[in-house]
């Protein structure tokens, strides 16, 4: 029952992923009063400033590979950072893992080079081809 003047407590638990615990006093979770995901994350990164660069880009957006769940729901399918939280909710921060061998530009350049090589191999027998092969020897 609520009484006049009493404020509603909206306590949410934020679970810190293992890789980020060194930046949060090695804590596994932290409890905050927050009405939205944005508010909880804001409080988290104000309390543990070093966490910020691992969760947000320099222009203040959540990094593309950082995913936030309220209980078992991915906030991308709710109201994103404006997703409201209620008392007892658990917020989880889960990375998606991405990477790869080369930038797309480098890969495209490499493919261009391969195509060029294939084209040049076709004309190996021609005089032009002999000149091309000689260019590698010089």
């Amino acid at each position: 029952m609520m009484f006049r003047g009493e404020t509603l407590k909206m306590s949410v638990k934020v679970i810190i992923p293992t890789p980020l615990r060194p930046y949060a006093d090695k804590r596994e979770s932290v409890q905050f009063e927050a009405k939205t995901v944005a508010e909880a994350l804001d409080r988290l990164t104000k309390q543990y400033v070093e966490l910020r660069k691992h969760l947000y880009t320099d222009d203040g957006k959540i990094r593309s590979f950082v995913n936030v769940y309220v209980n078992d729901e991915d906030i991308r399918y709710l109201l994103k950072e404006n997703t409201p939280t209620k008392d007892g909710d658990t917020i989880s921060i889960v990375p998606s893992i991405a990477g790869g061998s080369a930038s797309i530009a480098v890969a495209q350049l490499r493919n261009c080079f391969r195509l060029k090589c294939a084209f040049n191999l076709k004309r190996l027998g021609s005089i032009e081809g002999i000149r091309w092969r000689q260019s590698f020897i010089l």
Partner: protein
Amino acid sequence: MSARIYLPPAADAQIRAHAAETYPYECCGALLGRELDRCREVLAPFPLINRRDDSPRNRFSVTSDDVRAAEKAARAGGCEVIGWYHSHPDHPSRPSEFDRQHAWPWYSYIIVSVAEGTPKEMNSWRLSDDRVQFSLEEIEVKLQASA
């Protein structure tokens, strides 16, 4: 002392086999293991599906749902996800700029180079606290860290 990661021979073989199997596409998976005093130990690789179907030759992606599945498997085995592995088909086993932008410190990132279908060099990398660069973590292929 530089960081060190112990890899049982079976895990080493499993990662290499996965990389050869998916060639010319990148493979990926989690490293289930534990932190020890001055090093860490892989107990088992946890192979995952590369979710990038647009450019799997030079990109890999593990969705957050797959990450949660790996974390669940680790918890069930009494260990944790200490890192990730992936392959670089016809490319050296060093992280790209794209790898750096999508990494977190603490995790071990094992990269195996695959040349024309044959797994070659394997390296493990850790991202610095300031997210600026990766440094090498020594891989020791050994049955048990304490052995």
